[in-house]
């Protein structure tokens, strides 16, 4: 299984903050394709400006392999302070 977390405005867009995908997609792009198949708007938002992906709490770029049990987070532009 792959656990997916959404933060900030992505969560409002999706109406969920955490979901499990079973069976595990093999790669990050496969996961995005699964999301796109059910919610094209959300998938477009995940590819929007400034959105970063983290796999097992490490930021990644482009497509990466997902081990079974991986945790994937999508992070919109960050702003603290």
């Amino acid at each position, binding site marked *: 299984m792959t656990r997916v*977390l959404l*933060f*900030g*405005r992505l969560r*409002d867009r999706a109406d969920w903050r955490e979901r499990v995908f079973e069976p595990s997609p093999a790669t990050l792009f496969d996961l995005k394709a699964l999301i796109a198949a059910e919610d094209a708007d959300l998938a477009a938002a995940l590819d929007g400006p*400034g959105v970063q992906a*983290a796999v097992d*709490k490490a930021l990644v770029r482009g497509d990466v392999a997902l081990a079974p049990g991986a945790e994937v*987070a999508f*992070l*919109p*532009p*960050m*702003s*603290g*302070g």
Partner: protein
Amino acid sequence: MIRLTQEPFDPGAELTRFCRGRTETGAVASFVGLARGEGGAAAALELEAWPGFTEARIEEIAGEATGRFSLQDVAIIHRIGKIAPGEAIVLVLTASAHRREAFEACDYLMDYLKSRAPFWKREHGPEGARWVEPTARDLEDMGRWED
């Protein structure tokens, strides 16, 4: 010391504690960020973090600042959850032997927190809620340190 807290905190008390027993420090700089009410347009701010990840990322940048500015110590306290106008959102404290390093490190850490630290900020007002993202000015400020 990095701390995220749901509860209001007292920046003065934290500064006093941070300064205690420092016989070789010479300089402590502090920055306090307060929630602005925007004349009623922002009734509350709401900050979301990713527990574990957010602290680890801030820890990383505090480590970079320590090396870059020869700091003796750093403390960052950041609110999460709902924050009322006038309450402290963030406190940054830096300790070094001489003042220039302490001032610059404080400035650097705040620029980082504004546009790179894993927080997501929402402003609640009479018109509803809106997500706040880094401004062009925030990104320009961050750029000053990247050469």
